């Protein structure tokens, strides 16, 4: 990971944000940073709800401004990097990594949510409590043996721990997951029944397109048109070619048009969020 973004711009920041390898200084920095952070949060907690709301709006704008500035600021060619950059560009990677780390820590929210649902059922001995017990046992076993064996890659963990992890991962989880997804083949049959009821011209077009694509993937479809010589222009109507063409020249542009619409909509939505024009549960909470 590159050095901290601002380090190149201000020398005092370079000195402050330099890696610490001595454990004493390192832990001192950690403790001071934590106390500083808690102090700032405690001070902000004293603000009125309206002030907190404005703080959120301003910080949301500044957060968006960073990427917007990086994007709109004039660039110059950097021969070393072989690309056009501006003064913010070198900071882009560490900042994105930092944001991604913050986002990655949210995994705990999912676990807490599941634990609350199953924990209530288990402690109240409600109907199906043994399912919740199974959930907790599976979760704890996977976490314990996963961390013990470093997800099966540890050289120091004993063979028994490796055996349990292999049993849980390869023996149980992989098979359960694959079979659960395979079940969808049966459920999609009922979806197909609904989709293929030809009541309108549009439904007929949908059905024909689906059939052409599916037949192009299976031997039966290919065999249906195997009589058409491969080297003639009629080969276009061989099922595998027709299927490929439908995907590449009809499905692709239509899908791309939808994607372009979505992207333009996302950009408009992003502008509204960035400028705090969007209102909803998020901002309306603060009076």
């Amino acid at each position: 990971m590159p050095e901290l973004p601002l380090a190149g711009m201000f020398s005092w920041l370079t000195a402050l944000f330099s890696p610490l390898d001595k454990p004493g200084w390192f832990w001192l920095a950690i403790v001071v940073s934590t106390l500083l952070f808690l102090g700032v949060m405690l001070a902000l907690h004293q603000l009125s709800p309206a002030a907190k709301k404005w703080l959120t709006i301003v910080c949301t704008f500044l957060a968006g401004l960073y990427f917007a500035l990086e994007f709109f600021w004039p660039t110059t060619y950097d021969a070393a990097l072989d690309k056009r950059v501006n003064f913010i560009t070198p900071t882009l990677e560490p900042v994105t990594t930092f944001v991604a780390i913050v986002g990655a820590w949210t995994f705990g929210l999912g676990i807490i949510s599941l634990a609350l649902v199953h924990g209530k059922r288990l402690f109240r001995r409600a109907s199906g409590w043994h399912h919740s017990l199974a959930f907790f046992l599976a979760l704890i076993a996977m976490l314990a043996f996963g961390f013990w064996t470093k997800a099966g890659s540890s050289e120091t963990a004993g063979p028994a721990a490796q055996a349990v992890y292999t049993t849980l991962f390869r023996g149980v989880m992989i098979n359960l997951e694959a079979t659960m997804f395979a079940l969808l083949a049966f459920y999609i049959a009922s979806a197909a029944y609904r989709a293929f009821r030809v009541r309108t011209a549009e439904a007929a077009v949908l059905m024909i397109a689906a059939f052409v694509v599916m037949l192009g993937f299976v031997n039966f479809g290919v065999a249906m048109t195997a009589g058409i010589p491969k080297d003639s222009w009629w080969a276009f109507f061989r099922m595998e070619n027709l299927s490929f063409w439908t995907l590449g020249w009809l499905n692709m542009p239509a899908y791309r048009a939808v994607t372009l619409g979505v992207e333009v909509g996302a950009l408009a939505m992003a502008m509204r969020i960035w400028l705090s024009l969007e209102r909803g549960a998020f901002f309306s909470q603060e009076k």
Partner: protein
Amino acid sequence: MTEQEPRDPVPGAALENEARFWPVILLGAMALLIGIGILMHYNEGAKAQWVPLLGVLMTLGIFSVLYKENPVFRFLEHILVGLATGFGVLFIWFNYLEPNWYLAMMPNAAAQAGEPHGQWWLIFALLLALMFYTVYFPKLSWMNRFLIGVMMGWSAGFAFQGFVSVVAPQLRTSFKPPVTGYDLMQGQAAEHIHQQMNNIQIGPVWFHPFALIFIVVLLCTMAYFFFSVEHRTKWIRQPANAGRYFIMIALGAIFGTTVMGRITLLIGRLDFLKNTFADWWQALVK
């Protein structure tokens, strides 16, 4: 119409006629299976058979729902949720947080050149992330909204870059010229019939009909979603109508590929069962 009781009003609840000793049997069986797995690990021959045996049991247990809802399926469903959640945590930690956060932050005097270490300021990533968890404390939950706001602002700013990096290349490749003054194949033999049909020489120019079809389909589909003008006049109504059919073709094609994907998964499972049983049969016959 007869009134039907919902079969399972509470997700994960026990089935109506489920015997009370089921939990003990199922949990005991699972513990036994894992216990035997550990013992078998010390025998190479047994180890090779153990994982497939467990796989067959799990596969049949899940497929049992095709007959009807049953306690074994329910039990295995919850086991899967537990294991997948645990594995998700392992995946995030070992693939992302450990290399990019933990190892980069912790001091390491013996670190190689270029290996990140001692970056103490990464503690702020954890401290900021902890603000997400204030959602469970009403008095502090403003911190959660604050952080979500900042993250959304970040994402919104990033949307500018995303728009250009995603949309611009797509637009460039979508509008390929239908008529060019050069041969797309440049004398090379066509490997596919489509290359041949998309490169027709007419006098001094080359005509590319598929490029034209691509542009027409793209524009008609976009016209269908273009609501800035009313679809009353011919010039917008007709392309929009055609666009509706093109969308149907695209949805049909997507449906077709989805069906084939699911069928492939099913075939994969059945193939696993067939091969495992065949191996066992051969071992028995020997």
